[in-house]
């Protein structure tokens, strides 16, 4: 009994600092967002006069940097959802044909997918800019969507392929004998069984695109096409940044991913680790 207490205590000793480490910055964002401009840097743990006025400023687009707030958050959402959907489409088809139809060259594709991660995404930013320019996509939301799909797809293919491999092979054979064509197998047997992994991958790609800054900054430059992440960056261009409003915006910006993650948390853990261990 004592031994168990001791080992639990050790775990707590690690867990508490990690938790604080994670939560303190978020608490700071929150603190800034409910403070007035004057008290924002007071260093107090709770503002003397907490206020929700900053949020009003954000939602009513009443600040110079926020004139396109709703437009930009819509861009973020649009880009994130599109990235999620296209990644899902690409990765599911790839995983199905490599894992279940066992197409020739599947292994090579898998290795190539893994290889893309040897090159940091930042290095590819300039070539990507050039490519989008060639296709005349610069300043279109599609350019960012395509760039994000490029970055998300290899990992998505790997995860989905691992998950596919775990489905019993006999199911495919039973379906074939039952008369299913490969497309029917995909639609009626494969997809329904892959739902947890599909949700996980959709969420992964969606969050990746939602949080992206570098590529968004590079590929999109018009006020009306940039996502909110880049819009937030504009705050830092002034000498006297309105921190309290920046933080209020950041908090709003952070809510959708948190909500999505919370809604799908069951799938996230199950889906991303499925295939990693033998169940």
């Amino acid at each position, binding site marked *: 009994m004592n031994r168990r207490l001791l080992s639990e205590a050790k775990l707590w000793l690690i867990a508490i600092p990690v938790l604080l480490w994670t939560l303190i910055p978020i608490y700071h964002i929150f603190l800034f967002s409910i403070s007035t401009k004057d008290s924002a840097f007071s260093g107090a743990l709770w503002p003397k006069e907490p206020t929700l006025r900053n949020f009003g400023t954000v939602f009513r687009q009443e600040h110079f940097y926020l004139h396109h707030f709703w437009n930009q958050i819509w861009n973020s959402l649009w880009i994130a959802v599109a990235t999620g959907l296209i990644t899902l489409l690409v990765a599911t088809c790839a995983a199905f044909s490599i894992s279940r139809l066992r197409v020739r060259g599947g292994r090579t594709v898998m290795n190539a997918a893994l290889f893309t991660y040897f090159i940091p995404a930042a290095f590819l930013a300039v070539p990507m800019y050039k490519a989008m320019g060639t296709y005349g996509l610069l300043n279109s939301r599609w350019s960012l969507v395509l760039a994000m799909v490029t970055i998300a797809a290899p990992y998505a293919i790997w995860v989905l392929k691992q998950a596919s491999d775990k489905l019993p092979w006999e*199911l495919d*054979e*039973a379906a*074939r*004998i*039952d008369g*299913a064509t490969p497309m*029917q197998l995909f639609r009626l047997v494969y997809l329904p069984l892959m739902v947890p992994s599909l949700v996980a991958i959709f969420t992964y790609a969606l969050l990746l695109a939602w949080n992206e800054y570098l590529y968004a900054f590079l590929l999109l430059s018009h006020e009306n096409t940039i996502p909110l992440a880049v819009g937030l960056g504009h705050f830092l261009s002034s000498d006297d940044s309105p921190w309290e409003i920046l933080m209020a915006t950041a908090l709003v910006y952070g809510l959708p991913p948190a909500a999505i993650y919370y809604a799908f948390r069951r799938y996230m853990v199950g889906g991303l680790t499925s295939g990693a261990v033998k169940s």
Partner: protein
Amino acid sequence: MAAVSFSQIQKSFGKTAVLHGISLDISDGEFMVLVGPSGCGKSTLLRMLAGLEDITGGTIAIDGRVVNDLDSKDRDIAMVFQSYALYPHMTVRDNMGFSLKLRKDKPARIAEGVARASRILNLDPYLDRYPRELSGGQRQRVAMGRAIVRDPKVFLFDEPLSNLDAKLRVAMRSEIKALHQRLKTTTVYVTHDQVEAMTMADRIAVMNEGRIEQLGEPLELYDRPANLFVAQFIGSPAMNVFEGIFKNNHIEALGARWPTSARAAEGQSVKYGIRPEHLALGADGIAAEVEVVEPMGAETEVLVKVGAQTFTVMTHGRPTFGPGEKIRLAPQAAHAHLFDAASGRRL
């Protein structure tokens, strides 16, 4: 219903040949069991018939039509897998109706087909359950239901009972047999369990290392095994086999003379085989020492030793002797099997 014909079937995986020219004709309505140790090629042969493996050489015909290049779905067969292979996201009803749905049958026809199969297999109470909510035996019945619904020309079973516990296995064995007697559909059944083979088959093909060792009715294989492999594979407990020399219409071995009605060349080296129930325990005969006595109620299995050789003896009585005691073995000459020591062929 249909006849199935394998002709000179060969199969290689890369450079490894696993089937060496198998020819086998299964008649319309027959229950054929392919039996053999694991790796003998029986499942591969079945999967080739199902269209799940490519055919390296030879032809397979169903109902007179060569199916080598036909897709599984166009062969009009149904298969029951060892792992059941039920679709986990579909109810029992949808599992059974899946093939009809793919065939684009009308909903009323699908419902009718499912109802008929579920009546035959007593699955009515489970139609709206998911496979995970069923026991192993029920799942196996659903897998069979899925096969029946399609009313195929041939049923294929790939070790369907291996995942069930012993008691259920016996029950399902009779159920499959009864099903076959009712539907009279040509059936090919693969198993490694010779008891399943003996009890269910119309005919058995005993396979070993990619060849058919013997093809025949169960009791024919039991009474007249064509070679040592079949002799030792069929029958439980297994046949007692040892080596000896044929002299004066007897076999000399283990310091004793063993009677036989079979004949070999004088002085020929042979294998002598005798089934446990053909060794009588009596007052005369070959001296042996009791090692273990295993009473099973109706019968008693006795392990005895003659020289260094252990024998299994099956007796109906309830022997009073115990381990260490000396007894005498009397082999029934008419039931002794002789095999050539070198080739293993029956003499």
